[in-house]
């Protein structure tokens, strides 16, 4: 496994601008080597061009001393007003809670609902669940417990009333009536305590202070589950009445008491979630905020690793636009790649073609653990899952966080992912997927001496249409699956102004994502309602907390990918790729330019992506979903394996024969259409397509027809509408 890891900020940088790298070593201090390279092609192995990098001489190249940097994963809220919590004599802590992991596995531990407990000082107090999952109160050495474990995913009202003068605490755990039958009864106990809270400390909701190490706060005993309306009262007087339904889109925690003991969340717990009183009458948190007064905390949430910068440099002014990486090596271990993007100079000359790096998708897949966790993945892959030793790093370092394909330790879906942490799987090695596979396209552009700029989803989201101005052609990557509204609208506007778009992949423009303003570098996505989902979003939580947008498939929001690129996702399988066969429409004079010099009827029965150009994830033409009726389907794939199954949004009533051996709907359609704005769209409809471009020294029918399209799209002559 790698012994040195890191991340970059910013993600996309122009020549002449600074970039910082946060580098840390694993298992103790050690020397490491750093080098900046431009990535041209990934390590495709003997069946393809193989790894190609171009060294970029920089001031940070060379050997460095490295030390470990800590990550304090786990979300919580903190109220940094210790003076307010130091002189409590008779007080009550109470909240509605819905624990989601009882007990914690594999090692049972405490889970703090709220309090000032500081593990390093052995002082403070905490209302919590003990190792068995029973409500407990901690002050002094040993906690007092009800002895009755709570049930996961049920709502309770919990309270601890403390009278230090009398030396008593009363604990109450009261199951709330909900729609599931239950035999649980309220539990209340009063018992003696003989300790004082000790020095005042910050107030935590969902965790406790562990220590301060290396100048940074570390936390422990994170709560898994929802906390709603936590409050602290001294006698009858409120000290803090925290309202999680306020400021949902931010990291702020609002105190409704006269004391204004406002706090903040750390590590981006999930907000805009149903509270204890949600009755199903409203699905949008903005329309019934009183029913959305909870926050869902997880012990593995992570927003910003917060590492100190260790290497900084200014991108040389003559650096060409491209995909770059800081290549890190230590002790002969595998390389670790910190990928970043050099965009064209701001206000400077541009190429005529732009590669739009799918950075939103790369991030949604970042630190993907799913293949390494138990489950029936092999049944939809159609083969044994494969990882490498760099992927294994994730299973030894859970603090690195997960992808939107994974679930938290309590089983709930991961809907926040951040680039402000080391990411193990955006690299030119490992699984031939996303960036690795996209590099096949860049390598092909280089082989044909086609000049290109690299821009990113993040740039497009922030800057919109002006980022695309001046480009004759925009080429997507092989799998631009995750798209924000701003990105979608910019691409549509680009086409409306005569732009040409080459959609070089499959399952694109599928899920809606948002970029939370309060958390730069993070993406929010909710797997709502429908679609091919690694997990299912909780009912009532389909609306994004950061923007209020309705999450889920663009297809379910009137903007199916077909409306933009003429095709949309229909099937997936991962055991073997297939080929396309030309259609009669490929002889249409409008498509003649595409097949100039291509005599073959069968296209792409070769390639590094599992042996064919049509594979992995497939898109098909469908006017009912918005594919332009005048579009030409110039080729369609066939002969897919049993592993390829129609996706569930294509199936209303389950039926047999929905796999690639039986269903003609399992196919990729290669589509061309002229856009009313004067431009045009070419779509491959297959993730595997770009893996065929380099076959036979870049001289093959897929390469030839793609080059034909690119050259015509670079030609300013407008396309006439049919």
């Amino acid at each position, binding site marked *: 496994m790698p012994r040195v890891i890191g991340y970059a900020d910013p993600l996309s940088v122009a020549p002449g601008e600074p970039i910082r790298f946060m580098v840390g070593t694993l298992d103790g201090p050690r020397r490491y080597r750093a080098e900046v390279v431009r990535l041209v092609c990934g390590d495709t192995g003997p069946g393809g061009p193989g790894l190609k990098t171009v060294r970029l001489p920089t001031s940070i190249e060379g050997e460095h001393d490295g030390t470990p940097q800590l990550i304090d994963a786990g979300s919580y809220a903190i109220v940094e007003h210790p003076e307010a919590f130091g002189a409590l004599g008779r007080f009550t802590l109470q909240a509605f809670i819905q624990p989601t992991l009882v007990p914690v596995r594999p090692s049972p531990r405490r889970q703090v609902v709220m309090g000032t407990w500081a593990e390093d000082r052995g002082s403070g107090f905490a209302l919590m669940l003990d190792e068995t999952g029973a409500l407990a109160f901690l002050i002094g050495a040993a906690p007092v417990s009800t002895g009755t474990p709570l049930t996961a995913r049920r709502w309770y009202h919990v309270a601890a009333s403390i009278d230090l003068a009398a030396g008593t605490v009363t604990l109450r755990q009261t199951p709330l009536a909900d729609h599931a039958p239950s035999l649980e009864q309220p539990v209340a106990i009063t018992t003696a305590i003989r300790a004082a809270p000790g020095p005042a400390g910050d107030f935590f909701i969902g965790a406790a202070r562990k220590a301060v190490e290396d100048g940074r706060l570390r936390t422990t005993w994170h709560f898994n589950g929802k906390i709603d309306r936590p409050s602290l009262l001294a006698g009858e007087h409120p000290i803090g009445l925290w309202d999680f339904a306020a400021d949902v889109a931010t990291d702020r925690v609002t105190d409704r008491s006269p004391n204004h003991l406002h706090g903040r969340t750390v590590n981006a717990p999930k907000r805009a979630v149903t509270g204890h009183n949600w009755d199903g009458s409203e699905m949008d948190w903005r329309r019934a905020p009183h029913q959305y007064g909870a926050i869902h905390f997880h012990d593995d949430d992570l927003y910003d690793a917060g590492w100190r910068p260790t290497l900084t440099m200014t991108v040389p002014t003559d650096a060409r636009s491209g995909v770059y990486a800081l290549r890190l090596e230590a002790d002969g271990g595998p390389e670790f790649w910190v990928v970043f993007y050099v965009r064209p100079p701001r206000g400077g000359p541009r190429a005529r073609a732009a590669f739009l790096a799918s950075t939103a998708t790369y991030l949604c897949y970042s630190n993907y653990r799913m293949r390494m966790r138990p489950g029936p993945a092999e*049944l939809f892959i159609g083969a044994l899952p494969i990882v490498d*030793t760099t992927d*294994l790093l994730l299973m030894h370092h859970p603090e690195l966080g997960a992808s939107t394909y994974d679930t938290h330790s309590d089983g709930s879906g991961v809907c926040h992912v951040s680039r402000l942490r080391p990411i193990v799987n955006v690299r030119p090695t490992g699984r031939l997927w996303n960036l690795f596979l996209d590099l096949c396209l860049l390598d092909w552009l280089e082989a044909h001496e086609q000049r290109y700029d690299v821009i990113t989803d993040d740039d497009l989201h922030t800057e919109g249409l002006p980022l695309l101005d001046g480009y004759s052609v925009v080429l997507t990557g092989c799998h631009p699956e995750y798209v924000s509204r701003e990105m979608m609208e910019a691409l549509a506007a680009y086409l409306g102004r005569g732009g040409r778009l080459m959609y070089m992949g499959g399952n694109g423009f599928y899920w809606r994502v948002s970029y939370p303003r309060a958390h730069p570098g993070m993406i929010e996505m909710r797997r709502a309602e429908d679609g091919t989902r690694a997990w299912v979003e909780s009912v009532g939580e389909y609306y994004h907390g950061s923007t209020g947008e309705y999450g889920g498939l663009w297809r379910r929001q009137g903007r199916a990918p077909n409306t933009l690129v003429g095709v949309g996702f229909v099937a997936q399988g991962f055991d073997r790729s297939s080929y396309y066969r030309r259609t009669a429409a490929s002889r249409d004079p409008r498509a003649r330019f595409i097949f100039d010099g291509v005599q073959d009827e069968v296209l792409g029965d070769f390639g590094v992506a599992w042996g064919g150009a049509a594979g992995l994830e497939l898109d098909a033409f469908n006017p009912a979903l918005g594919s332009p009726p005048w579009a030409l389907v110039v080729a369609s794939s066939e002969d897919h394996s049993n592993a390829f199954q129609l996706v569930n949004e294509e199936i209303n009533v389950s039926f047999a024969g929905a796999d690639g051996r039986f269903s003609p709907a399992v196919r990729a359609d290669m589509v061309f259409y002229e856009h009313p704005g004067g431009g045009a769209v070419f779509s491959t409809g297959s993730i595997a397509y770009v893996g065929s471009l380099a076959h036979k020294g870049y001289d093959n029918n897929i390469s030839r027809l793609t080059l034909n399209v690119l050259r015509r799209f670079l030609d300013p002559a407008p396309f006439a509408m049919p």
Partner: protein
Amino acid sequence: MFAIDPRRTDLALEFKRRPFGPHSPELQAVLNVLRGSLHCQNLLLVCTRPHAEWMLAEKQPDGRPPRLRPDLTFTSLEAAEWHAFRVRWEAVTGQALPALDRE
């Protein structure tokens, strides 16, 4: 429920010859059972030398790292698939597959 007939070694041979599909409907039914059986579904390959060597591993619950099997390394994905097939066949049917190499 569909049960694998251990006499159908012809289906095992079909898999050995073409592990990555497409498969006949009968072989696919066998694969669905083998890959879906709870007691042997959590296999994983860890690439130990890019494009050259893979080690079998077993996925573990509760976020724990996979258990590596250094004694089971393969120089082709086809060989790894065949090993997993044979192990599962015996686990599910209770009968080891006979040698099919010369067929």
